[in-house]
């Protein structure tokens, strides 16, 4: 069975690196994106099973990227988990996301949440 693809959109290199390691350890295949623009491109090209989206990012922030995903018929069903150090920024757009996690967030919780939104 091929591993489940998780797209991690995160601008802070240190955070993206370690999240990739953590998710690989948990058996996922990880795709990395440094901002909202890269996240959209990667989602279109590689069709991940789930997206873990940071909110504050240069070029295109996570909120805007998620809205764009929801507007594209081929992408709108991909579950998106917001993972942010400032959860108040998604409070007005909660319905865009399948889950919202506040940083710092334990990898155990992230992994369980990914499984939840995938219905496993």
């Amino acid at each position, binding site marked *: 069975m091929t591993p489940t693809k998780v797209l991690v959109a995160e*601008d802070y290199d240190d955070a993206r690196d370690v999240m990739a390691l953590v998710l690989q350890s948990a058996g996922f295949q990880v795709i990395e994106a440094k901002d909202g623009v890269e996240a959209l491109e990667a989602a279109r090209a590689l069709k991940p099973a789930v997206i873990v989206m940071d909110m504050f990012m*240069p070029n295109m*922030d996570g*909120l805007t990227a998620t809205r764009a995903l929801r507007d594209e018929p081929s992408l709108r069903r991909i579950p998106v988990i917001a993972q942010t150090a400032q959860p108040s920024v998604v409070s007005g757009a909660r319905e865009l996301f399948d889950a919202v996690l506040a940083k710092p*967030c334990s990898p155990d919780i992230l992994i369980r949440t990914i499984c939840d939104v995938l219905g496993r």
Partner: protein
Amino acid sequence: MELVRDPLLDAVTGLASARDESTVCTIVRKAARALTAADGVTFVLRQGNHCYYADEDAIAPLWKGRRFPLETCISGWAMLNKSVTVVPDIHVDERIPQDVYRATFVKSLAMVPVRREDPIGAIGAYWARQHAASAHELGVLQSLADAAALALRNVQLDADLKEALSQERQARSSAEEASRLKDDFLGLLSHELRTPLHVINNWLWQLKQGKDSPAGMLARALDVIERNTALQSRLVNDLLDVSRAAAGKLSIDSKLVDLGASCEAAVELAQPAAREKNVTLELVRAEHPRIWGDPDRLQQVLWNVLSNAIRFSAPGGHVALSVTRDGSRAVIEVRDNGAGVTPEFLPHIFDRFRQGEMGMMRRQGGLGLGLAIVRELMTLHGGTVTAESPGPKRGTTIRLEFAVADEPQAVH
């Protein structure tokens, strides 16, 4: 039935609703003339020790727009003595300044004070013939004056009220602005503290898994954890500095410092951050003025300015530092060709809790306290810091100025 119109009642009604001084003047001069059948009337306002001839209605010009000392004219006399004055023949009354009247048609006059108990003005009526104002004429003038006094008080109250309202509105809006800035700052603070913590937490989890970690994983983890711990320490130290400064408890420990050497050290220290971002950092000119300063705090000032310049430079950008002596001043300039500052934001660049509005597209990094701390430390050094920018994307120059220390006497 036809309504009978009474000019005095019309005037009183008009004055009751007047909301500015010029309306009061107009009503008073028209009514005064109509009620007395005088050849001219004046409406005089007291301004400190002067009478101001605010308005007039006459067969030929009188003194509209002119000011006279209270003691030198009859309107002043009426105000100072709080009494009605009748002058049937101006040539036989010693209170009349003849030269002022010579150019006018006036042969006789009557003057009533506005607000009897503490006059704020007077209404004058003038005739081109000798005439002793009748009790009826004086009575209507005094009634008009009383109504005018009330109307002027209304105008003043109205203006005071508007002024108080606008002050209150201004105070409330600046309090709201300050509170919004603090809320934004708390959001940013929480974000900036949680981000490194998230990284550290994830690494600890990863290390605890313990199994099949490739070689070098531990060293990589320690490196990242160290960097993120340092980042958090810096945030906490900045916060402490800002709160100490706000409490007036920030202090420096001064020694004689070679500013050129300080700058060389600071540039050396900031090179790794510049390299990491592919920004060229150069010390373009280093003279060696000596100043009284706190070496550690000076390093902090320089680090804050340099790291800011690097952070707001694009890859391939250029940051240049120069230190020179200009007469009795030592001047450090840090010039970058990076993000620049809008003219609107430039005045706030050294304020606490302010960062350029970048919304959710801002990059990781910093609380926006660095330059506020620089300003505090420069003030403690008796120096100044200023910023210039030609505009967005056109770079910024930060200029630090200190007084050069007096040359110490040579010791033998």
